[in-house]
């Protein structure tokens, strides 16, 4: 059965149809093609899930892509437990977000273009997760990056949007550079870039070192860290996180699909997929765990004080992605992927709710101008509240199970930094609950703070938008139920399911310790919610006073630790200066122009001289010919 091929190629077909026929023929009906294609992918993905649950995995080459010497690579598909989870996440979110977009993008002049790119993105993402070799993974990786660029800059007539698109693309170059070198290193070491032989042989190289830039480094650490470079860029971890908040310039469904649920989790997927390599290097794992922990803390603190509704959720995404890396870094890959899977639902839901709010507020993003929207938009309110409960880790919701699993495995795992990242993770759980509910309270509770016209305009979104919200809400609540830990009487089915690919994380601890970890994270979550309620419902004067009292801290957080300014000073402005003064001023004007203009000028000048020979008089030519013959004869005689 090859019907799994439909999963990526249906969206590709939809892309081709929309991009070729959308402008002139499909127009306002463009969404039908895309939605049907993606829904078809979803159906096949579910069938594949059933097959995989029965223990059937697929690793098949479709056709030979590149053959050069001993370098062979095919377009091939690997469908195992990890892939199938990603397939479900991607196709489910993509389908619901496609449907939501029908309402959200209604009447937009680039309607067909939007759906075409959304389908292309889905195709690339599916190619990424279904690859059975690193090159195809890289193809999907760059493909999603390209679609991300297209869609962030979707409103390309707006300068901030096109700038944000460029920023996302350029910042990702830094990470992908390392990723590319990582793939070269893999080929150099193993002589192949197929997952199966690479992972099978990785153990044999566990103690090898390699000379890299003049230093002897542990081979597996080097490869793992180079691959992790790519993850850092794509998943917006420190220090390459700067592009994700700006990416919110794109339409909200794009933020939900690409910059929350799917593309940004590709980095986590990569680490999980390469777990056989990462597991061989304690250093690399430690770097992954610490990067994740620091990023999650860092982004969560910024999220506390922002006022832009989408940016708060963007920082929340960065923070939660940090959580996933934290999990991978302590060796709990399946917990990381579990969080990826639950996070996709509640974060996509949060974004779509934010989009629904923006829809009602005529594009307003500032929290301080909202308030009291509860009575106008009950469905949006309820779904967003449930999503926030889920992200805050309230027991019973999806976020609780995945977060608890990560914290427990961090606490009890063998990692040397486990306790440290557990502590950071718990603090972040508190912060997450706080800023998520700050968002809820400022948006939906209290009095309306916007203009009179805005208040008049307030309305619940149409059904085509609210139904995807409700369906995602089901996911945000129930998706975690497949991974209820043994402690709470569940079967931990998710970990069991992942075991063949990601191994079984070892946690060494007593039941009482496990209860303790769970209790601490639940208390952290509830106290975050409680504090947000106190600050933004009961004593609304406290945040103002606090911001005034700690103005230094507030300013630092509000300006995102000045990272953008730092990069602007360190990289952007020197680059622009170099471009203007050296590349344009010297290289281009003095060197390239000189060559480009000099060559024809020299040829022209020489021909001015030489053309005089061509007099047009027959007898001149004849004389030259006769003289030539005489010279030749003379030479022959004198020889």
């Amino acid at each position: 059965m090859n019907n799994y091929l439909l999963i990526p190629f249906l969206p590709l077909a939809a892309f081709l149809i929309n991009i070729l026929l959308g402008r002139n023929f499909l127009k306002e009906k463009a969404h039908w093609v895309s939605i049907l294609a993606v829904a078809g992918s979803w159906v096949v993905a579910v069938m594949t899930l059933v097959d995989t649950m029965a223990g059937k995995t697929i690793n098949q080459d479709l056709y030979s892509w590149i053959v050069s010497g001993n370098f062979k690579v095919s377009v091939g598909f690997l469908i195992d437990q990890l892939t199938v989870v990603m397939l479900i996440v991607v196709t489910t979110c993509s389908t619901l977000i496609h449907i939501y977009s029908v309402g959200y993008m209604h009447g937009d002049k680039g309607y067909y273009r939007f759906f075409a790119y959304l389908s292309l993105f889905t195709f690339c993402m599916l190619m990424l997760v279904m690859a059975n070799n690193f090159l195809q993974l890289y193809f999907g990786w760059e493909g999603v990056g390209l679609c991300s660029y297209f869609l962030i800059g979707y409103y390309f007539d707006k300068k901030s949007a096109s700038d944000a698109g460029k920023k996302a693309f350029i910042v990702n170059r830094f990470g992908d550079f390392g990723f590319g070198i990582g793939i070269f290193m893999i080929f150099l070491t193993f002589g192949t870039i197929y997952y199966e032989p690479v992972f099978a042989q990785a153990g044999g190289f566990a103690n090898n070192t390699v000379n890299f830039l003049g230093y002897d480094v542990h081979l597996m650490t080097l490869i793992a860290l180079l691959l992790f470079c790519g993850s850092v860029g794509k998943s917006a971890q420190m220090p390459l996180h700067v592009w994700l908040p700006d990416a919110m310039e794109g339409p909200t469904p794009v933020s939900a699909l690409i910059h929350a649920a799917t593309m940004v989790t590709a980095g986590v997927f990569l680490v999980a997929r390469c777990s056989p390599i990462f597991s061989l290097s304690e250093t690399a794992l430690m770097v992954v765990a610490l990067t994740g922990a620091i990023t999650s803390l860092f982004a969560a603190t910024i999220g506390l004080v922002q006022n832009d509704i989408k940016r708060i959720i963007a920082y929340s995404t960065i923070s939660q992605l940090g959580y996933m890396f934290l999990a991978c870094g302590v060796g709990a890959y399946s917990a990381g992927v579990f969080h990826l899977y639950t996070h996709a639902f509640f974060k996509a839901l949060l974004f779509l709710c934010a989009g629904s709010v923006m829809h009602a507020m005529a594009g307003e993003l500032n929290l301080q101008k909202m308030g009291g929207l509860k009575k106008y938009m009950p469905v949006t309110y309820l779904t967003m509240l449930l999503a926030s409960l889920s992200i805050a880790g309230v027991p019973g919701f999806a976020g609780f199970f995945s977060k608890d699993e990560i914290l427990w495995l961090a606490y009890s795992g063998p990692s040397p930094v486990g306790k440290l990242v557990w502590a950071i993770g718990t603090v972040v759980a508190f912060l997450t609950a706080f800023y998520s509910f700050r968002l809820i309270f400022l948006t939906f509770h209290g009095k309306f703070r916007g203009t009179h016209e805005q208040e008049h305009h307030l309305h619940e979104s149409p059904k085509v938008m609210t139904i995807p919200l409700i369906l995602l809400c089901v996911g945000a609540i129930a998706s975690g139920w497949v991974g209820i830990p043994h402690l709470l009487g569940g079967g931990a089915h998710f970990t069991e399911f992942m075991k063949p690919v990601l191994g079984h994380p070892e946690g060494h601890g007593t039941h009482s310790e496990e209860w303790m970890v769970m209790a601490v994270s639940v208390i952290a979550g509830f106290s975050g919610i409680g504090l947000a309620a106190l600050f933004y419902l009961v004593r609304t004067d406290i945040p103002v006073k606090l911001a005034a009292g700690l103005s230094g801290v507030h300013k630092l957080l509000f300006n995102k630790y000045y990272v953008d300014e730092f990069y602007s000073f360190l990289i952007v402005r020197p680059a622009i200066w170099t471009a203007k003064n050296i590349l344009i001023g010297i290289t281009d004007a003095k060197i390239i122009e000189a060559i480009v203009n000099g060559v024809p000028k020299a040829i022209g000048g020489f021909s001015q001289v030489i053309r005089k020979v061509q007099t047009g008089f027959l007898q001149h030519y004849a004389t030259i010919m006769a003289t030539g013959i005489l010279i030749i004869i003379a030479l022959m005689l004198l020889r």
Partner: protein
Amino acid sequence: MVPLNWYLMLSATVFMIGVFGFLTRKNIIIMFMSVELMLNGVNISLVAFSHYLQDLRGQILVFFIITVAAAEAAIGLAIIIALFRNKSTAHVDEMNEMKG
């Protein structure tokens, strides 16, 4: 009997008269006639060698040259007449259309 060298000298003289005529005279008809002189200079040496070596191939070659010269004269004169009709002159210095 006349020695071979005399024939060859005559041949060279006739050929060089043709060459100098072609290079120095400005009237296109005279230049054309100079070309014929060159051809016939060559013919003389061919016939002389043919007789000297007792080999008829030289004389056969002369027939060929005479035939080609006749054809060339027909085409050449036609071209000259066409030129004269266009330019109303037979002076080669007025014909420098190919000047670079």
